[in-house]
C-alpha cells in the first residue's frame, strides 16, 4: 500500500518537472547579470523548454499550462499581460498539429521548426505590443533575443533531453 502511494507521489513529482524547469528558466532569465546590454544577449531559454516539452511530452505541457506560463512571462518581462500567453497558445495549436512531423525526422528539422515558430512568435508579439501601445515598439531587442535563443537551442535541447531521460522517465 505504502509502496503504491510513494509510487504515485513519485509519478506526480516527475510530471511537474517540465513546468518546473520552464519556470526556473524564466526566473533565471530575470536575474540582473550586468547591465542592459548583456540582458539583450540572453536567450529566452524558457521558450525553448516549452517547445521541447510540447513536442516530446505533450501530456505534461498542455495548452492551459502553456497559457499560464505565457502569463507569468508577461508579468516578469513587463510585456502587456496576455501578449505571450496568446501567442504561445497559437504556437501550441500549430505544434500539436505538426508534432509527428517534427519529432520523427532529424534534429536539424526540429531546430528549423523551432526557428520558424520562434520568429513567427516574435513577429506576432511585436505586432501585439505595438498595437497595445498604439505605436511601433523598437523591434531590435526582441529580434536579437529571438536569434540568440535559436542559436542556443541545440545546447538547451541537450540539457532538456538529459533532464527528460533522468527525471521525467527514468530507465
Amino acid at each position: 500500500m505504502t509502496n503504491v502511494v510513494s509510487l504515485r507521489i513519485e509519478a506526480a513529482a516527475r510530471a511537474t518537472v517540465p513546468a518546473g524547469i520552464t519556470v526556473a528558466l524564466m526566473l533565471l532569465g530575470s536575474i540582473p547579470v550586468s547591465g542592459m546590454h548583456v540582458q539583450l544577449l540572453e536567450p529566452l531559454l524558457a521558450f525553448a523548454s516549452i517547445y521541447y516539452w510540447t513536442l516530446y511530452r505533450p501530456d505534461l505541457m498542455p495548452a492551459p499550462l502553456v497559457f499560464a506560463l505565457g502569463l507569468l512571462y508577461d508579468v516578469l518581462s513587463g510585456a502587456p499581460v496576455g501578449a505571450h500567453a496568446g501567442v504561445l497558445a497559437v504556437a501550441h495549436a500549430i505544434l500539436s498539429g505538426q508534432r509527428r512531423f517534427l519529432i520523427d525526422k532529424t534534429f536539424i528539422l526540429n531546430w528549423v521548426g523551432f526557428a520558424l515558430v520562434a520568429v513567427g512568435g516574435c513577429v506576432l508579439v511585436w505586432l501585439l505590443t505595438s498595437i497595445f501601445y498604439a505605436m511601433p515598439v523598437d523591434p531590435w531587442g526582441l529580434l536579437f533575443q529571438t536569434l540568440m535563443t535559436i542559436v542556443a537551442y541545440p545546447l538547451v535541447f541537450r540539457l532538456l533531453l538529459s533532464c527528460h531521460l533522468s527525471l521525467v522517465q527514468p530507465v
Partner: protein
Amino acid sequence: MTDISRLDHRVPAACRTLAQWLLYVGLVLAAVMLMILGRANGQVMERMRIQVVDVLAPIIDMMSLPVDAVVVAAQTIRAWTALAEDNAALRHDRDRLLGWKDVALRLEAENAQLRQLLHFVADPQTRTVGARVVADNGGAFARSLIVAAGRHHGVGKGHAVLNGAGLVGRIAAVAPRSAQVLLVSDLNFRVPVAIGPARIRAILAGDNSDEPRITHLDPDAFVEVGDRVVTSGDGEAFPDDLPIGTIASIDNRTIRVRLFTDASPIEHVRIVDFGLQGIIDEAREALSAAPAGPSGPAAPAASPPVAAMAGSASR
C-alpha cells in the same frame, strides 16, 4: 457491426478534436480580453503584476546568489591584481578631492549667507532608501527593475531612483517588500528636462531603446552634441538638476540622449523621496486614464501634468 464500432471510435475522437480547438479559441480570446483590460485599466494590471513579482522576488533573489558569488569572486581577483595601481589612483583622487572639499565648504558657507539674505525657503526634507536590484527586464517590452525594498521600507510610488551616475528612473509600483522601477529608457517614461548651459526646456521621452529621445524642443533652440541633460524640475515630478545624460546624436528628426547610468551595470540604487507630489496623484491619474482609452495617446502611463505640459509645449 464493424461499421458501428468504427463510428463509435470516430465520434469521441472528433469530439476531442473539437474540444481541443474550442480550448485554443478560448485561450486566445482570454489573452485578447486580458490585453484589452490592461489597456483600459493599466492601474489594476500593474497592481496585479507587482503583487506577483513581490512573491517571486525572494526566489529570484535566492537564485541570483550563486551568480552574484561568481561575479564577486571575479571582481575580487581583478581588484587584487590591480591593487597597486588603484592605490596610486585613489591617492591622487584624494588629493584632488581635498582641494574640492575646501571649495565646497567655502561655497556652502557663502550659500548659507546668501540664503539668509534672501529669506530663501529651503527644499522640503528628502528621505533616502538604499536598495539592491533583484531583477531586471531590460528586454524588448519594458525597461524596468525590481528592487528589494518596498512599502515596509518607506518606498512610495513616484519616488526618484538614482545611482552614483544620475537618474535611473522612478518608482512605478510598490509592494510590501519590493518595488518596480520604471527606467528612464522605458516607453512610458517622460520627464521635463533642461539642456545645456542655456537650460533649454524640453521633454525627455523613453522609447525602449538605449538612448531616449528629446521631444517638444523649441525649433529655434540651439542644442549641440555633448550638451548636458538634467531634470528641469517643471511639473514637480523631480527636483531640478538631477543628472540624466548628454546629447548623443542630432539628426533631422530626432535628438537622442546617452544616459549617464548606462555606463555601468545598475546593481544598487538610492530611492529618494523629495517630498514632491507633482505627478503622483492617484485620483488625477485615474481621471486621466479614463479618456486615454485604447485609442488614446501613445503614452498610457505618462503622468498628467507632464503630459499636459508636453501638449502645450511648442514643437
